[in-house]
């Protein structure tokens, strides 16, 4: 029973990690708290859902469309909500307010479009196959989700570490003004960072939509709140921090729901956050240097 719940927690937690990764990437490179990240996640889930229902596309194509939709929506968000503020050198707080507004618009649009209904993926989107491993019931979907998360994280780290474009992103994270003196095009870096951040959210959206078999306009909101816990717990801007903390939150949440009560999940999650912050004020993987240097360093 415990092992079964741990497995469920790891699956949910790894998707939380994916969601938080996009959030923390944007914070680490552009110093933006994107309060509309949950809406990007939700729209990614809807894009994947429509791909599966209306276009009758297979799972992997629905996932790709969810990623693409999330990525493009996030770039659009940058153009509409963040870039005009950057141009005027507005303080970081204005970006938070502006993204809260964008979030409301994106939520209302989805609510209107779906008439506040909860929608589901068709049954044949993903084959239901269950394996018995050491007494554990492991669904194929769970294995695939863990595989996809690993693939995306390895891909992201490889991109940041090993490619010239990734080094440019890390240079902007380290020092924006120096990056411009080196001839790095800030528009191209912003485009990549917003796209990656949104694509990670979009994939997370489709996966969460499948795991709970429910897609609705509010699905991103509790996740955004949890993403805050994840990145504060993991350390702002830290990629390994987002993953470890995401897993931890997922496991704690699933265990609380199954052994205590569903209503206590957030209480336990936030108590955990306060306890960790008492011991480590900068989070598990955090440093006093804050977010920017973290992305550059990894």
């Amino acid at each position, binding site marked *: 029973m415990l092992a079964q719940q741990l497995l469920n927690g790891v699956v949910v937690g790894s998707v939380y990690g994916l969601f938080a990764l996009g959030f923390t990437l944007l914070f680490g490179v552009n110093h933006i708290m994107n309060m509309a990240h949950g809406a990007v996640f939700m729209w990614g889930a809807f894009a994947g859902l429509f791909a599966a229902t209306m276009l009758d596309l297979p799972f992997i194509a629905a996932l790709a469309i969810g990623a693409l939709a999330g990525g493009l929506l996030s770039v659009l968000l940058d153009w509409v909500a963040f870039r005009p503020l950057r141009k005027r050198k507005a303080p970081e707080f204005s970006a938070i307010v502006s993204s809260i507004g964008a979030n409301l618009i994106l939520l209302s649009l989805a609510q209107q479009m779906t008439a506040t209904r909860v929608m589901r993926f068709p049954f044949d989107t993903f084959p239901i196959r269950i394996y018995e491993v050491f007494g554990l019931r492991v669904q194929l979907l769970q294995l695939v989700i863990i595989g996809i998360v690993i693939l995306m994280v390895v891909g992201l780290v490889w991109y940041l570490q090993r490619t010239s474009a990734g080094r440019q992103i890390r240079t902007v994270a380290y020092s924006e003004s*120096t990056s411009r*003196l080196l001839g790095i095009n800030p528009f191209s870096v912003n485009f990549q960072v917003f796209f990656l951040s949104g694509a990670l959210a979009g994939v997370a959206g489709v996966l969460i939509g499948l795991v709970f078999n429910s897609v609705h306009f509010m699905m991103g909101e509790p996740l955004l709140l949890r993403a805050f816990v994840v990145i504060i717990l993991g350390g702002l801007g830290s990629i390994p921090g987002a993953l470890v903390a995401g897993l931890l939150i997922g496991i704690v949440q699933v265990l609380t729901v199954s052994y205590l009560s569903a209503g206590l999940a957030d209480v336990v999650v936030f108590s955990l956050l306060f306890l960790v912050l008492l011991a480590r004020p900068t989070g598990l993987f955090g440093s006093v240097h804050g977010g920017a240097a973290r992305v550059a360093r990894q």
Partner: protein
Amino acid sequence: MLDVSGLNVSYSGIRALQDVSLTVGQGEIFALIGPNGAGKSTLLNTLSGIVPAQAGQATFEGQNLLGMPAHRIARAGLIQVPEGRQVIAPLTVRENLELGRIASSGRGGSELDHVHDLFPVLAERRNQLAGSLSGGQQQMLAIGRALMGAPRILVLDEPSLGLAPVIVREVFDALLRLNREGLTILLIEQNAKLALETARHAAILEQGRVVMRGVAADLAHDPLVVDHYLGRAEDPV
């Protein structure tokens, strides 16, 4: 090669540069000296596109620099080595140099060999993190990184700042060698003696205005300059 005329820059309501004009000729070293806060760095950052100008003109090889985005200016070949080196500490020496290549926009070729020849220490430490280098080595890396962009004019902000005299000599010897090889250099220095020895032409900036300009060797013998900038016996070099 680089023409600045009537440049006015102010930010946060403070006038940083007032009617600044100067001309840097092809193949020369031009030094801009003056006390702290005179506006020297502001001038460089205006030329590099980091700080906007309110009035005046700045042209580089016929292109109007004012209003051009910073990354395009670097790619056009006006490359700045910023004050305090600004190497990317979490990247290796080699990765820092590779970053410098972005500005070359295809102009470049064998810059890496040239940089390694100029500063052999950068070849020895190519896999070390830039943040682990000494101040002098970081300055060499910052210059090497700029050279990777195949600059048409190299612009340096206080390259001697915080370095031991023997390292300063090494850095300036490298600049002289680059200049002999044909590179145009615009240099900002607080160390006036060193700057006037190195440059062909120079200008003195005080409180945002050019108060003197001319042949560096002449300025070095001008009684006013000697009095204000060279008279101190404790000059390090």
